[in-house]
Every structure is written in structure tokens, then in C-alpha cells.
């Protein structure tokens, strides 16, 4: 437990050389640290994993890439990191062409892949130092010591990785990715299979890194993770980026509010007098649901309640709720493009 508290307190000696990061208001004016243009990837079997993806990431932001399984999230990350060769398109990292000037580009990037893959026979200390050396950085035992302490791995420095728990192995992966002090960190499903407490500690770790200016791109299945942490979210579906928006803005634009009225007496159909509110009858006629846009000047709620009162429709309870990012995400990924809805000739 103490170890987890320490991780929760981590604010990352991990990247110590950078100034505090920018905020969203500055983002538009900044040169992107990652710029992806018209990126396509078709695998040998013919599967098109990425379809003309273009995306800019500002320095110091946390960007969450959301999408269902097989949408292309990992392929996109792998292409930027050099693990997958794109079919066409251009990628820049810190102003360096990821394909042509790959050495400079990759020096800036740390990657924590989705799968836990480590050299199980190596010790924690050896494998993290190896990663630093592989990225061309001189040995720095003080830095690695602090990094392991921040990740609550210092006590396990001489343990072989095969002896560690799943959560510890994942932290070793993070330590390896941070060992060369990257400016850009890719986290592919960082909290998959991690318990709730450790997940929240990871979030603190990510925020700590951002405070020091590290740009973080993460993929996740946990919508609350994106909602909690990300400055912006991108939704990818069938290899296409369909939405890129600031998290707050997407919630504002696409989020709906609902008013749920529990009726005193159940009804079989919505009365004609209430037709203009396009109400939905639920719970076997015991509930009326009114969906409205909270940003509209007039929500229509007072007039609805008045009309109901005028027609003697009573209600025992009322409740309002707003859609979560998860609702928005589910709506987006299940919404087929217009062309796909048209019947084929």
C-alpha cells in the first residue's frame, strides 16, 4: 500500500528537463509536436487498418485515442514508433520525419505497449538501464534510481522480472519507456488489467508527467480514463479518425441531458398535447423521458411541466442526467457513415 501511495505521489523525476506544459488555450498557436498527415496502412492480408489519418498533437497535452477493438489505435501508435511500416502518408515527431530522420524522432519517444513484454530473466535494474542505453543515453544511475523509487520498484531492483506481479511488470514497462527521458510518451492501454487503485495512481503519474511538459498519447477502453485525464480525445473507427475535440467541448457539443419524470399514473401513449417535446415513454408507461440540449437558450422544461399540469398529468419524482463520454463514444462508433446507410443499387 505504501508503495502505491508513493506512486500516487509521483510527479515524475521521469522527465526533469522540461518546463511546465502549455494549456489548451495556447494549443492552437503552438507547433504540433506530433503531426500525422494522410496516413494509410493496409496489411498484407488486405485489411485497411488506417485510412487517410491526419492528426496534430500539441506539446504538453494529454491526448486520448478511443475506439473499439480493431479500430486502428495500436496500428497508429506502432506506425509513429517505427514498429509498423505505413503504406503511405507522413509523420513528424518534434519536427523530425519519423521515417527519414527516424533516429532523432525516436529519441524523443517512449512507448509502453499494450502487451506486457519484458525479458523475464533480466533484473529490473538491468532491463531499465538497458533501455536507456539502447536509446543512446549515457548511464545515469541517480536518475534510474529515482525513477524506480517513483514507480515503487526500487525494492525490487534486483528481482528478476519473472518474479514480479502483473502490476509491477506494467510499471517496469513504464520505467523502461521513461528511462531515456522522452518528450513524447505513448501509452497503449496503460491500465488494462490493473486494479482500480493502481489505475488511479497511474492517472496521477500521467498528470505528473504532463506537468513537466511531456506529451502523452494514450489509448484506452476505459472512457472514464479519457474523461478524467485527457485534454482532447480522438475517436477512431475502422481506421478513420471521426472526431477530434477537446474533452470538455465534445461533452458540451455532443452530450445530451435527459429529464426523467416518474408518473403518478402510468399511461399507454404520450398525449398529443405533449407531442412537441418528442417525449419517450419508458418503464411500461411509468416514466416520461425528455431529451434536451442544455446549451439551448430555452430547455423547454418549464413549458413542459406547465402543459402537463394543465392536462392533469401528475408526476411523483423527477431526475436529470447528462450523457457521459461513454454514451457519446458508443453513439459515435455505432453511427454508420451516410454512404453506408444508402441501399446499394
Amino acid at each position: 500500500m505504501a508503495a502505491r501511495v508513493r506512486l500516487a505521489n509521483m510527479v515524475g523525476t521521469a522527465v526533469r528537463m522540461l518546463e511546465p506544459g502549455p494549456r489548451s488555450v495556447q494549443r492552437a498557436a503552438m507547433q504540433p509536436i506530433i503531426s500525422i498527415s494522410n496516413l494509410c496502412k493496409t496489411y498484407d492480408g488486405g485489411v485497411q487498418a488506417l485510412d487517410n489519418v491526419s492528426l496534430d498533437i500539441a506539446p504538453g497535452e494529454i491526448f486520448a485515442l478511443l475506439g473499439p477493438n480493431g479500430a486502428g489505435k495500436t496500428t497508429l501508435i506502432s506506425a509513429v514508433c517505427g514498429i509498423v511500416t505505413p503504406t503511405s502518408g507522413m509523420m513528424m515527431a518534434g519536427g523530425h520525419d519519423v521515417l527519414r530522420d527516424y533516429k532523432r524522432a525516436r529519441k524523443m519517444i517512449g512507448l509502453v505497449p499494450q502487451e506486457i513484454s519484458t525479458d523475464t530473466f533480466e533484473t529490473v535494474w538491468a532491463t531499465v538501464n538497458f533501455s536507456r542505453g539502447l536509446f543512446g543515453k549515457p548511464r545515469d544511475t541517480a536518475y534510474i534510481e529515482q525513477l524506480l523509487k517513483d514507480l515503487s520498484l526500487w525494492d525490487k531492483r534486483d528481482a528478476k522480472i519473472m518474479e514480479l506481479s502483473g502490476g509491477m511488470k506494467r510499471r517496469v514497462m513504464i520505467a523502461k519507456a521513461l528511462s531515456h527521458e522522452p518528450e513524447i510518451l505513448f501509452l497503449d492501454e496503460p491500465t488494462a488489467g490493473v486494479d482500480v487503485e493502481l489505475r488511479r495512481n497511474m492517472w496521477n503519474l500521467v498528470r505528473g508527467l504532463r506537468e513537466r511538459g511531456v506529451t502523452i498519447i494514450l489509448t484506452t477502453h476505459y472512457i472514464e480514463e479519457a474523461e478524467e485525464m485527457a485534454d482532447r480525445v480522438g475517436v477512431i473507427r475502422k481506421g478513420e479518425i471521426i472526431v477530434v475535440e477537446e474533452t470538455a467541448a465534445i461533452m458540451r457539443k455532443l452530450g445530451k441531458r435527459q429529464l426523467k419524470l416518474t408518473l403518478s399514473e402510468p399511461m399507454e401513449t404520450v398525449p398529443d398535447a405533449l407531442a412537441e417535446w418528442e417525449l419517450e415513454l419508458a418503464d411500461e408507461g411509468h416514466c416520461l423521458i425528455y431529451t434536451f440540449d442544455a446549451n439551448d437558450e430555452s430547455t423547454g422544461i418549464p413549458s413542459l411541466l406547465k402543459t402537463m399540469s394543465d392536462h392533469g398529468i401528475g408526476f411523483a419524482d423527477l431526475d436529470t442526467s447528462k450523457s457521459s463520454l461513454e454514451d457519446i463514444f458508443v453513439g459515435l462508433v455505432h453511427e454508420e457513415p451516410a454512404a453506408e446507410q444508402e441501399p446499394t443499387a
Partner: protein
Amino acid sequence: MNVRGVWALYVLEMRRAWRTLWQSIVAPVITTMLYFVVFGSAIGSRIEDIGGVDYGAFIVPGLMMLSLLTQSISNASFAIYFPKFTGTVYEMLSAPMSPIELVIGYVGAAATKSIILGLIILATATFFVDVRIEHPLAMIAFLVLTAVTFSLFGFIIGIWADGFEQLSFIPMLIVTPLTFLGGAFYSINMLPELWRTISLFNPVVYLVSGFRWSFYGEGDVSIGLSLGITGLFLLLCLGTVIWIFRTGYRLKE
């Protein structure tokens, strides 16, 4: 040049050899000692000198070459196959390492281990037979050239293999038979003309012959031809490795 990256990879691989000391060094040495007992003492005592060289001493270069070829291939193929198998290859592919730097790290370590093993076998042999080395520099050069060439070959096998069976297929079923039939334990000049001609198509003949020349000043074929064939195989392996990294064959999707 990412020298630190190359060194990190080299040290990682050398550490692995230390961890598997029995498999890497001790087992081949014991096997070689058994060869000396069986071929050198039991059978060798009934065989006349070959070209003025005692049979026990005659087989030393061949035995060294046998271990050098199999261990170079085994070391290098396992070194690249294991990260592919466990998934840790992602780190090599996403690191600021050029293909040539990766090859230097992996192949350099595999070749170093083989050379150390070869020298240990040579040292072991001196306890059993009188070994003389007429051309020590040529011997070292051949040792290094062969170790590097076959480590490159092993690296290719490790990338090509998509299972442990394939990993051992070529060393066990192709390289070992070619080495046994390549004059490791005899001179191909002792064979009937037809078999001697057929043996000349075996590339290992040129390696063993050249290596034996560096010991005793005589080989089955000329030293120039031995060097030429070995160099050609080295270039072939280098070309294949360059192609692998350019296309990402079985490394990148």
C-alpha cells in the same frame, strides 16, 4: 552511430551467455572432448598420419569449425528469435538504432561467444594432442570471418523462423551434416574421385580446408579459394540482412 545502443545490445547478449554458461560453453567443450576421446584416441590410433600430421591433431581445426558453425548459428538465431517470441522486439524496432547497428550488436555478441568457445576448444585440445599453428594471424582471421559469417546466417534463420522447430531445422539437418561431410574428420583427398568432386560443392569444405591450412600449412583446396568462398557467403548473408531490414520481412508488419 548510436554506439551506446550497440554496446547496450552487445552487453545484454553477452549477459545472456553468462546466464546460460552450461549451454553456451560447457556443453560444447564436453562434446568436443568426447570427439577427441572417440576419434582421436580410440579410432585415431588406428589411422596413419594425414599429410604428416597426427590424426588427433589433424581433426582439431575441423572440430573447432564444427562448434564454431553450429554455435554461431545457434547464438545469433536465438538472440533475435527470442525477442520476437516474447514480444520484446518492439523495443529494438522503436529505438533509435539503424539496421546496421542492430546487426552489429546481435551478430557481434554471437560471434564473440563463438570465438571464445573456439579458443576454449583449442585450449582443451592441447591437453590431448600436440597442436601447432603455422599461421596464427590467418587462423584468427578465419576464426573471426567464419564466426561473423555464420552468426549473420543464424540471424537470418532467427528472423525467418516462426517456431522453435524451424529454429533448429537448418543447424541440425543441414549445417551439421555438411560439416561432417566437409572434411572435419578427414581430408577429402582420401575420398574416391567422384565423391571428392561432389564434396567440392559443399561450402564447408572450403572453411575447414582454409582453417586447417592456417594450422598445418596444407589444405584440401587453395587458401585463396577458401577465402573467396567464405567471403562470398559473407556477402550473401549481408545482402540478405540488408534486404530484411529494408522490407521489414518478418520483423515489421
